[in-house]
């Protein structure tokens, strides 16, 4: 057992694929009872989709088609599970590795690839998708999420019992980001205002090359307690735990219970990014240990025991290949962004310097007569 696993955590699906709800986690078990087989299949489909997407993006980066790729391999259960635990009005503030959460909220995967190919800095509509933009500065988005949740509270959209209107906010961040002051300030502001927010920390055990042990002396789910933000640890490779615990605490937040923190213990099987080389700082044994705890394998075992057969898994694999081909072709087909885009959105209102510089740049480029 990994030393990080010595802390109690919510686990509904064992690494061997056994489903069991401990008595003291019954409140979470209720959320699983509501799920249909179709929900389970959707969970698996999306995890597989996320994995295939991730692998294709890595290959595209290795082929020079993306400036960078940020793999989420190993964290699919934490992301897909919690993503489906988010309600229909809720807002999500991701960090930069939440491809799985994005999948659960209908973000076009090409939007993410566009950003990593360098076509733009994000650009999807956060109001429409309720999935906000990726944030590169660690922890910065958690304050935005907190402010948004404060606004929800000021709007009176919390605890009214009107499920059509009430909403909560969830913010994702990693174990490394917990060291940022912005996270602590978020706990403080959220607790003081009792705003509807769930802090979802994916503890993937490595902040690039720094292990969690070098980031914190106490388990991270306890980080919010001193601010008045209670927390719980879950098995982040257990998609059912991730779904149930997120859904439960998002419901609570929406109903006015104030902020809550979930620490999902998972593992970053891949590199931090394609620029990283994890062989330099962690052992093969450790990676093998966690690869054996692959969240997809665990859930596949569970599904097969539920009677799901090869037909489904073959279909999923085929869909994955189709997706890979689609995004590969779409990536190659992404057009060069027009130079106006650099200037277009800097301000929302007219700005003389921007107008002047764009005008100059256009004339400058035109002075080459289109030659290169």
């Amino acid at each position: 057992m990994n030393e990080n696993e010595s802390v109690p955590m919510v686990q509904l699906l064992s690494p061997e694929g056994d489903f069991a709800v401990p008595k003291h986690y019954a409140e979470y078990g209720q959320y699983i009872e509501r799920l249909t087989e179709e929900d389970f299949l959707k969970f698996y489909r999306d995890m597989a989709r996320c994995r295939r997407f991730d692998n294709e993006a890595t290959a595209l980066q290795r082929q020079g088609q993306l400036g960078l790729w940020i793999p989420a391999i190993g964290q699919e259960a934490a992301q897909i599970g919690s993503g489906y635990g988010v309600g229909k009005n809720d807002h999500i503030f991701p960090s930069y590795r939440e491809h799985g959460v994005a999948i659960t909220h209908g973000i076009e995967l090409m939007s993410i690839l566009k950003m990593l190919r360098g076509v733009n800095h994000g650009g999807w509509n956060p109001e429409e998708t309720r999935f906000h933009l990726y944030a590169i500065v660690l922890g910065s988005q958690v304050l935005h999420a907190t402010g948004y949740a404060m606004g929800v509270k000021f709007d009176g959209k919390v605890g009214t019992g009107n499920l059509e209107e009430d909403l909560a906010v969830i913010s994702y961040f990693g174990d490394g980001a917990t060291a940022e002051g912005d996270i602590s300030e978020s706990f403080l502001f959220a607790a003081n205002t009792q705003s509807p927010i769930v802090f979802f920390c994916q503890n993937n055990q490595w902040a690039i090359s720094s292990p969690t042990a070098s980031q914190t002396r106490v388990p991270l789910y306890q980080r919010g307690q001193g601010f008045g933000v209670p927390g719980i640890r879950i098995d982040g490779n257990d998609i059912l735990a991730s779904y149930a615990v997120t859904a439960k605490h998002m419901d609570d937040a929406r109903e006015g219970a104030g902020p809550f923190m979930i620490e999902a213990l998972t593992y970053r099987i891949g590199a931090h990014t394609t620029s990283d080389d994890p062989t330099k700082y962690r052992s093969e044994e450790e990676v093998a240990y966690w690869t054996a705890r692959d969240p997809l394998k665990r859930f596949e075992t569970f599904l097969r025991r539920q009677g799901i057969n090869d037909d489904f898994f073959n279909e999923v694999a085929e869909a994955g290949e189709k997706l890979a081909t689609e995004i590969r072709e779409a990536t190659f087909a992404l057009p060069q962004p027009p130079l106006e885009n650099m200037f277009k959105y800097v301000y929302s209102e007219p700005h003389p310097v921007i107008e002047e510089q764009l005008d100059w740049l256009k004339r400058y480029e035109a002075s080459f007569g289109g030659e290169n």
Partner: protein
Amino acid sequence: MSKIAYFNLPDVGEGLTEAEIVSWKVKPGDTVTVNQVIVEIETAKSLVELPCPFAGVISELMAAEGDTVEVGKPIISATVADDAVGATVAQAESVAAVHQAVADVAASAAAAEERTPNLVGYGVADPNGPIRRKRSAAPVSTNTSAITAIPAAAAVPGHLAVPTHPETQVLAKPPIRKLAADLGVDLGKVTPTGLNGDITREDVLGSASQASVFRNLSTPAVPSEREERIPVKGVRKAIANAMVSSAFTAPHVSIFVDVDATRTMEYVKRLKASTDFAGTKVTPLLIMAKAMMWAVRRNPMVNATFTAEEIIVHNFVNFGIAAATPRGLIVPNIKDADKMSMLELAQAIEQLAATAREGKTTPADMKDGTITITNIGVFGVDTGTPILNPGEVAIVALGSIRPKPWVVNNEIQVRQVTTIGATFDHRVVDGDVASRFVQDVASVIEEPALLLD
């Protein structure tokens, strides 16, 4: 259908510039699929397996294991289907060139070490070094509509010739430079009067007014014919005959004019100080010679020869200078002096004087003169009535130049004043032409800027 595709070594780690081929996982003839690992490379950051971007049959491995390859150079070629997606980015490059590039990298390990890989982004742009894009239009002004555009050619107009100082060595504030450019004034030729030795607005305006006077006067072009023959007939022939029948063979007429030569003296001083004239003797005689050349152009009749049948008007100037030598007065001339620049003329005068002093003046030097100057001022006299050099119809005497009272703006000021005297052959040169000629010479002495044509 198929085509050849290349896979260029990508930057796999945010700003890397090269990688070493560690091991090939394929060989020529192998069939590969999209994303099949084909090679393991080692970069400055990590050991990385590269997946193939297209499906096809490997044609060639373009680098050997152990080679260091630059990012952007092809590493394999393959035969792929025409519609293969990943192949569209591949850039065909000759194998020889690639091998050369590989060799270059290997040979310049030191250069490779100098590269500093940055840690963020898409790879350093342009690994092959900077290339300037070809521009089809003029530089782009940064000015906006709200701001007055600066004229594209703010430099001194070309017709002002090379300034005697480079512009930047002249002290002048930006608006003064602009004013000078607008007025066509060469700042290098303006005498600064500013407190810091800089050229003032007044200095430029002063020069500009001289220049504008000049612009209002046109200098006729040199006729294309070397000589122009005017038949002596009618009234002119009658006058000539009358003159000949008079007591004089060549009827001399002399006129005089006093002139303020202050600016000529300043001009001489500036020329002396200029780098272009370094080592060359500059005297008022030089300005006088130039003045006569200009006046001749405007009054060609003074540069002529009288014969019984015709008056030969010379469209060239062989400029005679009366020189007192140990062997007596001689008048060597500078051939085609009107074609010379100020500097060339100065050098020619200096050479002529030196030759005469040394007694080496040849008959050819004295032949075919067309007009003459005698610098009697060097003897300290104000003026005189010089005798025509035979075969010529005009001679000018330059008197001494010295401070004298002069009326300027209704006030008496001390100015450098001289007298210009001239004698003409009245058979050819009437009084009005003679007067205009002398007046023109005097104008230049008073305002040498007239020469800035």
